[in-house]
Structure formats: structure tokens, C-alpha cells
């Protein structure tokens, strides 16, 4: 057996390719569920849709959430193992899969433990209860007298049976609607939840086992690449296909309107054919006029906008006359996901069915958009999640899925693996949109804030596939018969969109918060980790320091004076203690320290961050030697997993704050490779010290909440060090030098 055969076999086994088309019992309809059911169970009532005892002695647990590198499958396996009383190694979690798993929409918003975790907890408790009841009947004893351990039920007289043996006697035992009447375990009885279990997917990834969609190999598979236009708006005028005469291996050229792709027998042949096509394709000079990169604050505020007041209170309260008014404006750049592996998908049109393996965050919503574009019924399309490189939001995964499906249609019968090249990823994936923020406040003589007025201007950060009114997939807009973009969503508080975390977390007697949802979308907009929370927390927390400075207060004391929530106060106090925060210390022009606080979405995790900086005044380079964070994520399923997420968010925030910005001229994106979009490197990585608060239910989500306050704390540290305030991200050396001159 060759290495290739072996790896194909291993891959097939590990990802369920062979069984991808078996029929799963249909799910219950909508609207039957009692209101107290966990969110994800309401539209996925069937127990066997979540839990299945496999005859091979394992438990299959189905989730609608996707492994994005955050370790969610491990945490969900812990929850299932805990509630079922089964050994962790016997639990196999199947990631989002429209052919056989529950529809949990998207993996986003730091909600997977809250949603899928709650559903799997309830389903597992119910399954265990049903198995116990069946065992009680079989052994003719009371349920209360039975004990479960490691997948085995034991009676007082020594009789025992495994879950699988019991299920064999009644194949329909776990085929039913979930009643959610079996109470889950008490937290005090947990032995698997709350422990730092090693990630179940890492041994494979660290030894070279095929683990990613990029590693999929199917029999007869061809390789494909896309040839994107040179810029937004350019149209394909003509194509000299003779260009391909000297490039061997080409199987198909797919041209549909402005969509152009090529498939070849070998991967390097597909890449060579892409280059040949790109050099011989003639594109129109059309372009979308992009904003002036150097003046984002004023440019964004000149876009057409829909303005809403997303929070107001105390407007009838008078503002004391002697109050001092302070205002400031802040800007965030457009951000790229910068995933190390460009987007990739495998698509296979076979026997009238389209199967797409994708690292999408939303297998079910993507299926709907794919079906629309392909002119197929949803039931003829399946999307199976397979991990890709790190995912920090709405990246190119969904677009690559459609690209691959369009090529698969042209080579029907053959599986197609399509991967974007690095410049496709940097130029065409959705960006975290640029943001402009303006804050105005009034300070009373006693140092308390008595008025607060806030505005944020931003495009939607929520343009994923699966939205009403159109299709949100790149190639769909380029086809000869194009699809319209979906309408811009309106996401209410507290989730919000560009206005996520725009309402300040502080006790303020009078405040008004306005969201200016920008309607012009010259650059492609999407979701980057924490959506608008990043820009809003940056603005609010920088401004809190500016106010504290005017009030002559210590930043920690100033925040505490405006915070009542005891859990908010606790993280602030914990981080101050851990970092050795000392009020009244002055920066020395080079070194400084700053802090910031936020509660993600104002309903999720609490995080307070202290950042130390060292500023090289000659080069303008800002170094971050140390970050300290205190985080309260509620119930912790896997402490090391939560820690990894929180640390990762902090390092990514340092990268974003110091280095990252999508660069463009008035016609096109120019940052198309790593040297033009640098990210944090190993020598630049700060140490991170974490205080993880010990709290109970519910879980508040750990994936995103450490990122927003880190940017603000870094900016505050710079101001503390130098006495100069930079209100625009990122802190490039040029910007730093300009601020110090």
C-alpha cells in the first residue's frame, strides 16, 4: 500500500466520507418545543440527532458547531462524557454536517458552549435517563438503586449491562423527541467537566495525519484555482484560452460572466494555468472608488448611513452647568483575517448530488446559498464541515465552497479540491470593516461622568451566507446572471453589529448611543473576531482613560467609581492586583502601563487587561513585554482550553493594534501578501498572565472577549508612557513617530 492510499484511507475513516450520504432520521418541525428547552434543541428535537450509541462501542455525539481551532469538539465531548457517564475516549464528536447533524446555524459570537453545550448536556442527561429506566425494567429494580459508570449500569445485586447492551434490546430507545425532563448532573458532581483535558484533535494535527480540508484526497480528484479580477468592479472582457496550450494537465476552464477558474490534474499545473490565464485575461478598467486610506475617520462618516439610537437614558436629566465637556474621535482600520492557510473546499457532483467539504462557520446556511446559486434543491446539496486553518470570523471559506462547486459542475463525477492563493485571500476575503467612533462626555467637578454621547460609523460586520434577500457568496455576484447581495441585517442589542459593545458598561446618569450603519460598501465587509466590539471598546476604554486624566483620577479607581456589577469590579480588582497596579505612577517617556475593561456583548465574558509597553522613540516601534488579564467566563468546561482562547485573543489583539491594516489606493487593495500585511512574530509576542475567575453557571463564552480590551489597554499604556494619545489603529512606527514629534 502506498503512502497515498494509506492517507486516503485514514482520511476517509477519520472524516466519515464514506458514510456522508446515509440518511438521518428527519428532524421535528418548528414550534413544538417548550420555551425552556436549550436554544439549539428547539429546532432539533430528535434525541438520535444528537446522541447515538454506535455498535462499535463508542458514542457518536453530533453538534451543529464547527471546530475552528478553538477546541470546541473537546469541550463538547467532555460535556457528553460527563452527563452520560462514559469514558471520554469513547465519545466521538461529529462537527457540523448537513447530511446527518443538527442545524445550529453558525459557529460564532462565542456561543458554542452556551448553545451546543447546553443542548448536548440536556440530550446526554436524557439518554442516560432512558438507559437507566430500561435497565431498571430489565433488572426489575428501582432506577434509584442503579449506578452508572464508564458506560455500564450496575444493579445492587451485581447484575450489570453496558449502555450498548441495553440499547440492543430496544433499538428505538434513543429514537424520540427530547423531553428535557431529565435533570443534568449537579456541578458539584462533575468529574470531567472543569478539567483541562488535552485537545482530542491535536495528536493528529501534530503528527501529520490528514486533518484539514486542505488534506483531503479523494479518488480521481482534480485541483482547481480561481482567477479573480484585478480589483473590485473589473469585468472580464476577453480571454485568450490559447494561453493554456502550453500549460499541461488542464481539465477544465470555467468561465461564467466574470467568474474564471481552472482545474488540472496536478496542483502545480492548476497554479501554472491560473497564472497563464491571469496574464492573458483582459479585464475592464472599471473599479469601485475606495475611500482615502489616510483619512478613514472623515471618509467613513461621509458614506450614506442609516442612523438609529441603540441606547438612551436620562435624557431629561439636566447636565450641571459647571461640568467640563471632553470629546475625542477614534478610528479602526480595515482588518484581514490573515489565516495561515488560504480558503479551501472540496466539491463533488455525483449522481445529481453536490457534496461540499468546507471549513465554513455555517454549514446549513451555506447549503442554502449554494443551492440557490447552483439551481438545486437544498436536499440535493450537502455541506460537511472539515477544519481549515484558524478561523477568526467570516473569511473566504464559504466563497471557496461555491468556487469549488462551480468547478465541480464542469467536471461532473470528479471531486475538485480548490484552494485560494495567498493574494486571493488577502484581496477578496471579507474584511473586518473600518470603523469611526466619536465620544463626548461631561465631567462633574467631583470627577463623575454626568453625560455621555457616543456615535459609531461602520459597515455591517454580518454579511454571511444564509441571510434573506440574496446570496452572500463572492462568485455569485460575478456570474453572467448575477445574484444580489443579501440585504444588510439589523441585529438588535445586546448582540449588535458595528454597534456591538457601543453601549458603555458603566453606570451613567445620562447617555445616548447612536449607530450609523453605513450603506456604501466599497470594500468587502464581514465578521472579524468580536465584530464592532473591537472598535467600540477601543474608543470607550481609551476615552475612559482620557476622562480619568482630566479628572485627575487613577484609571482603575475611575472605572470602579462608575461600575456596580460585582463581577465587573472583581475582574478589575483581580487584574490590578496580579499586575501590581500602582496608582499615580508616571510613565518615563519610554515605558508605561495601561488598562482596560469590557464585558463582551455586555452579556458575555468579563475581561480586564493590563498591558505594559516600551516605546522606542527613534524607530517608533512599540514593544509589549507583558500582558496581564483577569477573565470571568462563567462555568469553565476546560480551563486550559479557555486559557488558550483568552491568550490567543490577547496576542491577536497586540498584532492588530501594532501592525494590522488592509492597505488600498483609490482603486484596489494593495496589501496582498504577508510583507504588506505583517502580523505579530515570535520575538514580538508578549508574555501573558491570566487570572481565570472561578464562577459557576452559565458559561459565558471565551472565544472573543479578551481581544477588544487589549487594544485599548495597549493604547492607554502608550499614552501613559509618552503623554501622547494615538486615537487611530494601528500604531505603526510612522504614526508613533509623528505623535512624538
Amino acid at each position, binding site marked *: 500500500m502506498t*503512502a*497515498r*492510499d*494509506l*492517507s*486516503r484511507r485514514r482520511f476517509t475513516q477519520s472524516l466519515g466520507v464514506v458514510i456522508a450520504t446515509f440518511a438521518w432520521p428527519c428532524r421535528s418541525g418548528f414550534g413544538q418545543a417548550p420555551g425552556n428547552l436549550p436554544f439549539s434543541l428547539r429546532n432539533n428535537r430528535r434525541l438520535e440527532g444528537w446522541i447515538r450509541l454506535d455498535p462499535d462501542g463508542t458514542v457518536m455525539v453530533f453538534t451543529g458547531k464547527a471546530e475552528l*481551532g*478553538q*477546541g470546541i469538539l473537546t469541550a463538547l465531548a467532555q460535556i457528553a462524557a460527563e452527563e452520560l457517564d462514559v469514558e471520554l475516549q469513547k465519545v466521538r464528536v461529529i462537527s457540523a454536517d448537513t447530511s446527518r447533524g443538527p442545524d445550529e446555524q453558525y459557529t460564532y459570537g462565542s456561543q458554542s458552549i452556551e448553545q451546543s453545550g447546553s443542548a448536548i448536556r440536556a440530550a446526554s442527561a436524557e439518554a442516560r435517563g432512558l438507559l437507566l429506566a430500561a435497565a431498571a425494567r430489565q433488572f426489575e429494580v428501582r432506577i434509584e438503586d442503579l449506578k452508572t459508570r464508564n458506560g455500564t449500569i450496575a444493579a445492587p445485586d451485581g447484575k450489570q449491562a453496558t449502555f450498548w447492551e441495553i440499547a440492543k434490546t430496544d433499538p428505538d430507545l434513543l429514537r424520540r423527541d427530547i423531553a428535557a425532563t431529565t435533570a443534568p448532573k449537579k456541578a458539584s458532581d462533575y468529574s470531567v467537566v472543569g478539567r483541562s483535558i*488535552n485537545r482530542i484533535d*491535536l*495528536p*493528529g*494535527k*501534530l*503528527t*501529520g*495525519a*490528514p*486533518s*484539514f480540508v*486542505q*488534506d483531503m*484526497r479523494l479518488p480521481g480528484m482534480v*485541483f482547481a484555482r480561481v482567477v479573480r479580477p484585478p480589483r473590485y468592479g473589473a469585468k472580464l472582457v476577453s480571454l485568450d484560452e490559447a494561453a493554456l496550450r502550453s500549460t*499541461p494537465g488542464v481539465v477544465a476552464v470555467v468561465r461564467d460572466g466574470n467568474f474564471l477558474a481552472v482545474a488540472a490534474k*496536478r*496542483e*502545480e499545473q492548476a497554479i501554472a494555468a491560473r497564472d497563464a490565464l491571469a496574464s492573458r485575461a483582459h479585464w475592464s478598467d472599471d473599479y469601485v472608488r475606495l475611500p482615502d486610506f489616510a483619512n478613514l475617520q472623515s471618509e467613513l462618516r461621509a458614506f450614506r448611513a442609516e442612523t438609529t439610537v441603540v441606547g438612551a437614558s436620562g435624557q431629561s436629566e439636566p447636565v450641571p452647568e459647571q461640568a467640563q465637556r471632553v470629546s475625542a474621535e477614534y478610528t479602526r482600520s480595515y482588518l484581514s483575517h*490573515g*489565516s*495561515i*492557510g*488560504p480558503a479551501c473546499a472540496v466539491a463533488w457532483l455525483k449522481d445529481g448530488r453536490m457534496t461540499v467539504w468546507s471549513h465554513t462557520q455555517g454549514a446549513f446556511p451555506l447549503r442554502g446559498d449554494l443551492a440557490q446559486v447552483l439551481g438545486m434543491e437544498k436536499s440535493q446539496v450537502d455541506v460537511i464541515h472539515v477544519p*481549515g*486553518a*484558524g*478561523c*477568526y470570523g467570516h473569511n473566504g471559506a464559504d466563497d471557496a465552497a461555491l468556487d469549488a462547486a462551480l468547478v465541480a459542475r464542469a467536471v461532473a463525477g470528479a471531486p475538485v479540491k480548490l*484552494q485560494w492563493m*495567498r493574494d486571493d485571500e488577502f484581496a477578496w476575503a471579507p474584511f473586518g470593516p473600518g470603523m469611526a467612533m466619536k465620544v463626548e462626555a461631561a465631567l462633574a467637578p467631583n470627577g463623575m461622568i454626568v453625560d455621555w454621547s457616543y456615535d459609531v460609523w461602520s459597515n455591517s460586520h454580518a454579511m454571511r451566507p444564509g441571510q434573506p434577500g440574496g446570496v452572500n457568496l463572492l462568485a455569485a455576484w460575478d456570474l453572467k446572471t448575477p445574484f444580489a447581495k443579501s440585504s444588510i441585517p439589523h441585529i438588535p442589542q445586546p448582540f449588535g453589529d458595528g454597534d456591538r459593545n457601543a453601549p458603555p458598561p458603566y453606570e451613567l446618569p445620562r447617555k445616548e448611543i447612536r449607530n450609523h450603519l453605513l450603506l456604501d460598501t466599497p470594500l468587502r465587509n464581514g465578521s472579524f473576531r468580536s465584530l464592532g466590539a473591537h472598535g467600540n471598546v477601543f474608543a470607550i476604554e481609551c476615552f475612559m482613560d482620557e476622562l480619568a486624566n482630566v479628572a485627575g483620577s487613577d484609571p482603575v479607581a475611575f472605572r470602579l467609581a462608575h461600575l456596580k456589577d460585582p463581577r465587573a469590579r472583581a475582574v478589575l480588582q483581580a487584574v490590578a492586583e496580579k499586575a501590581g497596579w500602582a496608582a499615580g505612577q508616571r510613565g518615563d517617556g519610554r515605558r508605561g502601563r495601561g488598562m482596560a475593561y469590557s464585558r463582551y456583548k455586555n452579556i458575555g465574558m468579563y475581561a480586564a487587561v493590563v498591558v505594559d509597553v516600551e516605546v522606542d522613540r527613534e524607530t517608533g516601534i512599540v514593544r509589549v513585554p507583558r500582558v496581564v488579564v483577569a477573565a470571568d467566563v462563567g462555568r469553565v468546561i476546560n480551563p*486550559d482550553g479557555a486559557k*488558550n482562547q483568552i*491568550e*490567543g*485573543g*490577547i*496576542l*491577536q489583539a497586540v*498584532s492588530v493594534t501594532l501592525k494590522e491594516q488592509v492597505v488600498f489606493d483609490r482603486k484596489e487593495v494593495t496589501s496582498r*501578501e*504577508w*510583507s504588506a500585511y505583517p*502580523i*505579530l*512574530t*515570535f*520575538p514580538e*509576542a508578549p*508574555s501573558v498572565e491570566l487570572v481565570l475567575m472561578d464562577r459557576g453557571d452559565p458559561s459565558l463564552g471565551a472565544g472573543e472577549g479578551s481581544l477588544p480590551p487589549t487594544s485599548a489597554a495597549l493604547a492607554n499604556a502608550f499614552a501613559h508612557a509618552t503623554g501622547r494619545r494615538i486615537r487611530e489603529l494601528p500604531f505603526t512606527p510612522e504614526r508613533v513617530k509623528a505623535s512624538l514629534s
Partner: protein
Amino acid sequence: MAFRITVNGKPHLVDAASDTPLLYVLRNDLGLSGPKFGCGLGQCGACAAIVGGKLVRTCSITVRDVGKDPVITLEGLGTSQKLHPLQKAFIDEQAAQCGYCSSGIIMAAKALLDRNRKPTSEDIKNALADQLCRCGAHNRIVRAVQRAAAEIAG
């Protein structure tokens, strides 16, 4: 064209154009999943392997230029049953999030430990300066390399 290359101790006969980047030969002809495509520009290090004892970007070297130099990829270090100390240390430290950059980083760490048995954390950071990690697992990775160095030193 046919090329003889030695990968992870085994000789292979590969039929590919002479200018084929080694990366695609490793991934598609030999079915290895360790080296990853990241940028194709030699900038990110996801495709790194050790060729002739040196850390090489396999996206930027052709199969012809490999010649007789032995190639070592992640798969050549250890298996899930018999982990290399670096692989074991990465698991012990949970030194990854998505794991896409891990192969290149482990190979860069291997190249470091081959020439410096007792690296400081500064040495490790500098040796990994051209390896990109986007998830922010940097500190765990540095700790894992230190742990592996200690284990190899006994």
C-alpha cells in the same frame, strides 16, 4: 520527468515536471499532510521541512533542486504511537490552536535543536521569527520547544 528523492528515510521515484515545487510532490505524490500550503512565497513557513539538514521552504525549492539531499517532514519525526519529543512536548503544552502552522514550526524547532541543544527562550523566538502563527499560541510553542530540549538533553 522522473526524480529520485529520499523522504523520511525512504527512497521514492516521482514523476513530475522538474520545476514542480517540492511541496506539491510531498503532499500530492507522496500523500504527506505535514507540510502545508500557506503562501507559496516563502513568507509564512507553513510548508517548512528539513532538506539536507537545513530548514527549507518547500514551496520555494523545486523537486529538481532537492537532488540527493534527504528530506525530513513532520511525518519523519514520529508517529502518534511513537512521538518525537517535540511532538510530545507540543501535546503536553497544548501548544496549538488550529494546528495549521504547527508542522512548519515543529520542523523549524527541530532544525534549531539540531544545532543548539540548550536554546534560551530568546533563541527559540529568534529561530521561529519567520514562522507565522495567527492563533496566538506563541508562548505555548516556546514553552513546548524548551520542554522538548530538556527532554532530549535528558
